């Protein structure tokens, strides 16, 4: 695994416009950065990222099975009691999932270490599945990369195929896509999923989360008063559970993507549960609930993470009695978990995080994010990769 400088494609900004990639620059800072790429060997990709991704996903499903069967664990995962049936039923029915992203610290040597699982609302999907794919294609075409250069990235192909399967499992329903207003990044992610779904010949509609309505029977409706029966929402389950329409969840006939049982996977309580069920697994970092910290004495430094948080918010480092806050944010009221500190590898001044994507239960590709600080956040730069 090397960080290799490469010339930018001439006029790539125009190409981004052509393909509707509007958020490559945010607040005047580059988000998409193609002045360098990360080079991997095939063995690094397959042995160290792809295989562990599939295995960890199965371990995560084992955690879900344990949690739904245990009231005490449902409480630890901060699933509101009024929604226990909703979450459990979706698991027992085997409601199908679409995609997720595992975040790893990996330097090219040794096992990748799992930071967390973005199983409910992962973003940077378009950049990964399409835009970095196009970057590779363009650079091979102009001979800036060798002809045999490849990329761990079958995301788009797998998404389209998965939508075909989902249509088969969910016949006769229109799929509504939803995200919040005023977020170009989220809208772009959802637009991409709509493109993939249309490629699979699904009937799609779009509605903003804030515009969702309900009729007298408690069925959700879009702005044209059409009843929603199947919905992809780029919006966290833990928010929906606590909002005004949360009381209708489970009472109306809707199939959800991601399914409600994903509320257990996108939850940082997953980390100490994984460590309990699979102690000393090479891809896991030791992790603890707040009331188990007496067992964490052997670790010099712990990273304190909110049970619910997005994009690296509210992270701090605990060394003995000393707490150093690394990022602020609006999260933390539901409590915290603690994970043994394992710093991201550095390439020059860059701290680099690997996102490993799954479509359903299949490893499907890789994305890389860089930051000047130890914490990867929403403005961290996205760099492409190549297998050479």
């Amino acid at each position, binding site marked *: 695994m090397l960080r290799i400088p490469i010339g930018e494609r001439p006029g790539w900004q125009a190409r981004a416009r052509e393909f509707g990639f509007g958020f490559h620059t945010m607040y005047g800072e580059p988000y998409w950065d193609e002045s360098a790429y990360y080079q991997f060997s095939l063995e690094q990709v397959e042995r160290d990222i792809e295989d562990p991704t599939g295995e960890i996903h199965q371990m995560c499903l084992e955690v879900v099975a344990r949690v739904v069967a245990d009231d005490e664990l449902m409480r630890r995962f901060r699933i509101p009691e009024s929604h226990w049936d909703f979450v459990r039923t979706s698991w027992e029915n085997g409601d199908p999932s679409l995609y997720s992203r595992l975040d790893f610290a990996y330097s090219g040597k040794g096992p990748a270490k799992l930071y967390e699982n973005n199983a409910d609302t992962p973003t940077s999907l378009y950049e990964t599945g399409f835009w970095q794919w196009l970057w590779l294609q363009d650079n091979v075409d102009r001979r800036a990369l060798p002809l045999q250069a490849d990329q761990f990235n079958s995301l788009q192909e797998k998404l389209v195929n998965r939508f075909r399967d989902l249509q088969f499992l969910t016949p006769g329903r*229109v799929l509504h896509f939803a995200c919040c207003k005023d977020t170009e990044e989220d809208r772009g992610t959802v637009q991409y999923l709509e493109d993939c779904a249309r490629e699979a010949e699904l009937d799609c509609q779009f509605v903003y989360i*804030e515009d969702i309505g309900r009729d007298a029977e408690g069925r959700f409706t879009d702005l044209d008063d059409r009843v929603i029966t199947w919905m992809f929402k780029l*919006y966290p389950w833990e928010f*929906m559970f606590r909002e005004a329409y949360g009381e209708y969840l489970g009472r109306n006939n809707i199939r959800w993507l991601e399914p409600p049982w994903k509320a257990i996977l996108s939850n940082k309580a997953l980390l100490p549960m994984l460590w309990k069920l699979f102690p000393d697994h090479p891809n896991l970092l030791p992790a603890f609930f707040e009331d188990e910290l007496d067992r964490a004495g052997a670790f010099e430094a712990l990273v304190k993470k909110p049970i619910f948080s997005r994009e690296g918010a509210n992270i701090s480092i605990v060394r003995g009695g000393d707490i150093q806050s690394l990022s602020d944010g609006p999260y933390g009221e539901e409590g915290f978990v603690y994970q043994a500190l394992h710093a991201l590898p550095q390439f020059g001044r860059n701290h680099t995080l690997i996102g490993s994507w799954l479509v359903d239960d299949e490893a499907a590709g890789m994305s890389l994010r860089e930051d000047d600080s130890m914490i990867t956040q929403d*403005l961290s730069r996205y760099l492409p990769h190549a297998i050479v």
Partner: protein
Amino acid sequence: MKRTRHINLDRMRKAAGSRFILRPLALGVAAALVGCAPREEVKVVSSVDDCVDSTRMDEQQCEAAYKKALAEAERTGPKYRSEHLCESEFGNCRETGGGMWMPLMTGFMVASMLDDRDRHYGYYNPVYRYSKPHSNYYNRLMTADGDVIGRYGKTSYTVDRSSTRPKPTVSRTVSRGGFGSVASAKSSWGGGRSGGWGG
């Protein structure tokens, strides 16, 4: 190969300004979204007799199809809060049980391919004749969700396959805005984020 084998770039292109199309009518007339969606030929029939004359179905089958189309119209048809709004777009309207107004069904689609007989849905979608004067859609036939299938008066039409699928139920929305409050509260924290609730 560890990457997607082929992506049809033409289908990934976004023409400038057309990225998020707003639907122009209350009903929502869809612009032609994708040029190369799979298409199929359908007959549009206006009555049971018409159905018997112009399709391979017999009278009993046509009678059943007609009843099914009427039920679909009741469930999925465009609904308006006043008679006037409905008539301004579709001419002839009737009141529904729920105090709304909806256009009379002009006819219904029957798949013309024999092998489509096996399909248990998508057969009998109702169609409506749009009749607002001076509109670009004047005298066009459309499905309940506003997909234009062609000019009124032909016996067969070539349509996107999506037009033959069942349409969503249309209901009366009694409130909106029950989702989104947590995101809104957290974003007012204002930590310089770009917006977005993914991760």
